[in-house]
């Protein structure tokens, strides 16, 4: 039992770190502050062989603070070579979907029913289609809400299990959706037919709270577990080494 109290942001960071547990020597690609803290935490503790980039064209060595440049670099990885990592499966990405639906499809492209004239244009599908059918994929949702967790996405950027199955064996072969970490809970894709399922509630969060913040009825498997607390050593690493400026609290503010 931890003697210091972890904030929600720190619990989320440890849950993100756990996403890369067991991955060995592959590229961890986190989007957002808390997943970035999580990936560096995973490498600094239980997954020492993970690869990380500096966000530009270098593999970064060591553990360094978020919002800063790494001091040591261990390799060259321009954008073009990212596709080699993606297509060979040597990467586990954690993306931030604008929408994620019951069937595990993710959208970062555009919102609205008319594709030719969307209500809200976002980034575009980016690498999400190729990522999801090529290598392990997880998601980070900093604000669990009915706008983010929807019945059905308007554009499938990240491919969910049912959409992959419909597209055939080549789409399913390397599909490997892992977890969804939100500010309230951890979900996975082990509901019926690969749909989203509640895996654990963060300490202090109720099932009712999560249901109310989800735009569809979320599957549960009996009594939901409680997301683990970070260890004292993990908290020390987060607070003193990886995020001394407390940027994580801006992404998920303490209540």
């Amino acid at each position: 039992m931890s003697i210091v109290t972890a904030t929600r942001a720190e619990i989320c960071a440890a849950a993100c770190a756990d996403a890369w547990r067991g991955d060995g020597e592959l590229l961890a690609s986190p989007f957002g502050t808390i997943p970035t803290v999580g990936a560096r935490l995973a490498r600094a503790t239980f997954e020492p062989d993970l690869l990380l980039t500096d966000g530009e064209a270098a593999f970064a060595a060591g553990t360094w603070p978020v919002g800063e440049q790494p001091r040591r670099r261990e390799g060259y990885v321009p954008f073009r070579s990212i596709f080699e990592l993606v297509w060979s499966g040597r990467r586990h990405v954690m993306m931030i979907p604008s929408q994620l639906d019951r069937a595990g499809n993710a959208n970062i492209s555009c919102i609205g029913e008319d594709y030719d004239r969307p209500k809200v244009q976002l980034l575009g599908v980016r690498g999400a289609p190729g990522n999801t059918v090529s290598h392990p994929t997880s998601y980070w949702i900093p604000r669990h809400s009915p706008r983010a967790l929807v019945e059905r996405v308007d554009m499938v950027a990240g491919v969910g299990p049912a959409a992959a199955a419909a597209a055939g064996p080549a789409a399913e072969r390397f599909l490997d959706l892992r977890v969804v970490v939100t500010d309230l809970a951890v979900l996975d894709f082990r509901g019926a037919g690969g749909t989203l399922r509640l895996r654990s509630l963060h300490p202090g969060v109720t099932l009712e709270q999560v249901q109310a913040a989800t735009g569809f009825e979320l599957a549960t498997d009996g009594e939901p577990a409680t997301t683990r607390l970070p260890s004292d050593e993990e908290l020390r690493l987060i607070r003193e080494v990886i995020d001394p400026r407390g940027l994580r609290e801006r992404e998920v503010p303490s209540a």
Partner: protein
Amino acid sequence: MSNKLMSEEQVVAELRSGMTIGIGGWGSRRKPMSLVRAIARSELRDLTVVAYGGPDVGLLCAAGKVRRLVYGFVSLDTIALEPHFRAARQAGAIESVEYDEGMLYWGLYAAANRLPFLPTRAGLGSGVMRTNPDLRTIVSPYGDGEELVAMPALRLDAALVHLNRADAAGNGQFLGPDPYFDDLFCMAAERAYLSCERVVPTEELAAAAPLSTLRVARWMVHGVVEAPGGAHFTSCVPDYERDEAFQRAYVEAAGDPERWQEFAARFLAGDEAGYQRAVAQWQNDEVVA
């Protein structure tokens, strides 16, 4: 070796309305903005633009030059969403050909190698199969029998890229961390135009940095434009970082039609020299303010 030096206006004079034009760089990084600005103030129209999009796409949308956009994303990096691109999409003003960014790479690679298509897993099961009804799949002729996306070649009429250095023959050198896809854009194009921060004698290229930085070779290039500050306001490291303050001003102006008119009148109405003078004046005003 032939001298391929030309001006932005001479490049634009070689382009035609309705052409497919690829633009190098990535997001708000090392974009050939002086060439983009020249197109924006030209008579060209109905362009198909292929890009890892940033403000290049935004400016051309704002100027009404884009009929069709082929892209995986459009972003300003430190500001996630590009305002003019969003406005154009939300108004239904451009035809959207949206691909996974790896599909874009593969399409350029196919074109560069004169192949009709290349197979890829990227795109399978996603919305891009629905929004691009012309996309076809192909079944592997080998024992695995996998059905993959047949990504069509993205052949370009012209490519525009911006590098740190080049010689007058079109050997181009990137001195920053990433070549992006600039050489592929050049190879996928009938004619490629390279702008650069500084044109130098050929021997200076090899003396300045390892030969691996000479990613664009003269056989790929038809025209060379010396354009100091030509990537502004995108980054062109190590020559300069992204002008974040100016990018913010661009985004703020884009949010309001009247302010955009002012912005365009102040910065985009004249030629490239006029743009650079107006930016210098703006930066001076910012420091004083």
